[in-house]
């Protein structure tokens, strides 16, 4: 676990009580503006960093369209997770914009983006450990006022093991099962786009393959999926679109297959 972002996960300063040295309110208290056109979700030319800290992203663009799986890969410390968090409003984006479904959401707080239909699964601490699996799913559907039993049945169909363990505390589950709870929780909101931050971190290769299968299944329903992955090769194999980030900037962009075939990409971090 040498990744510079390990443990940062969703614990970064912008949404937790961990304070920056000077006490300033977060940047996102604004409204969404209509901005038609372009892909379903796009962060365009984003430059920014955590709080008042230095810029981590430099003119970085990430997008995903309906029915697609987009994958962000790159070497350690390249700003992969940071790029995704910028889309989700957990960063001070000082230049560039984020658009979702024809709306400019750059000024929205993460909570407001959830209301707009963004489902986000953080890398760490992505379940309520002291609550049961079913309560986790219920909390995922908190913003919904309609009947959630249908969605819950769908989640249980997708992850049968969760149905079996629905009355167990989520904290007692194995790593792979926890990830399933985390993805299930995000699906309960009926999101318009699903964002996964290293969903396969710390799970065995077999579980990883199974999780990837499930993610493909989710994407087939038409839900755009954007994920950050360390297992670049496997991730690019299932990706419709791949982004290689290096030092917070776009280095290569293309379909998964193109990137896998690109000698430059292969040499620099796929290991030849």
């Amino acid at each position, binding site marked *: 676990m040498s990744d510079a972002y390990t443990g940062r996960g*969703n*614990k970064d*300063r912008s*949404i*937790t*009580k*961990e*304070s*920056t040295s000077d*006490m*300033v*309110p*977060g940047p996102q208290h604004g409204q969404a503006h209509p901005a038609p056109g372009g892909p379903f979700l796009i962060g365009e030319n984003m430059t920014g960093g955590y709080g008042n800290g230095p810029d981590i992203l430099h003119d970085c663009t990430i997008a995903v369209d309906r029915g697609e799986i987009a994958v962000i890969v790159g070497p350690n410390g390249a700003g992969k997770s940071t790029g995704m968090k910028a889309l989700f409003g957990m960063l001070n984006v000082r230049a560039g914009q984020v658009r979702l479904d024809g709306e400019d959401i750059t000024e929205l707080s*993460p*909570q407001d983006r*959830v*209301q707009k239909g963004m489902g*986000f699964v*953080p890398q760490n*601490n*992505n*379940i*309520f*450990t*002291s*609550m049961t699996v079913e*309560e986790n799913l*219920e*909390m*995922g559907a*908190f*913003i919904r006022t309609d009947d959630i039993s249908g969605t819950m049945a769908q989640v249980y169909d997708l992850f049968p093991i969760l149905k079996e363990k629905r009355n167990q505390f989520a904290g007692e589950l194995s790593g792979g099962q926890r990830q399933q709870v985390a993805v299930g*929780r*995000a699906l309960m*909101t009926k999101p318009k786009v699903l964002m996964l931050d290293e969903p396969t971190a710390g799970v065995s290769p077999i579980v990883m393959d199974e999780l990837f299968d499930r993610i493909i299944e989710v994407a087939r329903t038409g839900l755009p999926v954007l994920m950050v992955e360390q297992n670049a090769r496997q991730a690019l194999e299932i990706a419709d679109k791949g982004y290689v980030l290096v030092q917070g900037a776009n280095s290569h962009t293309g379909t998964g297959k193109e990137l896998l075939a690109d000698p430059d990409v292969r040499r620099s971090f796929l290991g030849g």
Partner: protein
Amino acid sequence: MIDVLNAIVALLNYVIIPATAYGSQLALGALGVTLIYGILRFSNFAHGDTMAFGTMATILITWVLQAMGVTFGVLPTALLALPFGIVITALMVLGTDRVVYSYYRRVKAKPIVLVMASIGVMFVLNGIVRLIIGPGDQRFTDGERFIFNARDFKEWSGLAEGMAFKTTQGITIVTAALVVAALFWFLNRTRTGKSMRAYSDNEDLALLSGINPERVVMITWIIVAALATIAGTLYGLDKSFKPFTYFQLLLPIFASAIVGGLGSPLGAIAGGFIIAFSEVFVTYAWKKVVTYLVPEPLEPSGLLQLLGTDYKFAVSFAILVIVLLFRPTGLFKGKSV
């Protein structure tokens, strides 16, 4: 045989019943502290004075009711005034949140900043309570004093040792049980309660799930105000109301919450009773009970009191230190301090 019964009765009368009542009061107080810690993530030093404020409000309403000639039969009138006291305290607490704490939440201040702010609130409340009702002792218990008193018990049982069960003790225990049951039902069965648990478990993820933190915080404050007012009023009924005593209660209350595990409601209750029983056990003069149990030649000449009652706070403090040294997360695996 009779001596053993006498010993048991003496033990019940002087130790078990008072400690259970005191433990219930501490448990309710500690529940408030633990909820604030679990949800707002700071140790609320103003809790003792919130209890004092709530009790004061209840006493004032009690006086109004008494002046109007309203009583609650055999039960203390204060119980009728309690709902009004809770409303007043809830408004006061929500006001302080608006004026003081909400700013620090918005700027994501470190917990220690909030703790310091709560100490400020504590001093202000301290002053307000003394200004309104004065620093002196207030007794506001009315209605029947005893469920059964020592003389009735002696006649009924034929034992030499008497046992009294005060109405206020009975009310304390029953009310505490009802309040705790209601609180747990709320936290485990209702959507709002679950969202509070979720927020306490993982704040970031709760935000990602669309749980509105300001609403969770508001409901927490209202529940805490209710718990503090009930705890304070029960303590005041059982003993008497004096602002300084309530300020001092802060130590055993925090000790209870920490012993049980900060952030764990179950722990707060267990902690309350552990602290109460330890305090009473250590400061009770055991001579009477032991005299009944041992043969005459072995009868103790001293009082068999480990510590004078003046030192009762030392007991909470010692337990607090021991727990923090050896098990900082408390008995029920709360958050580490």
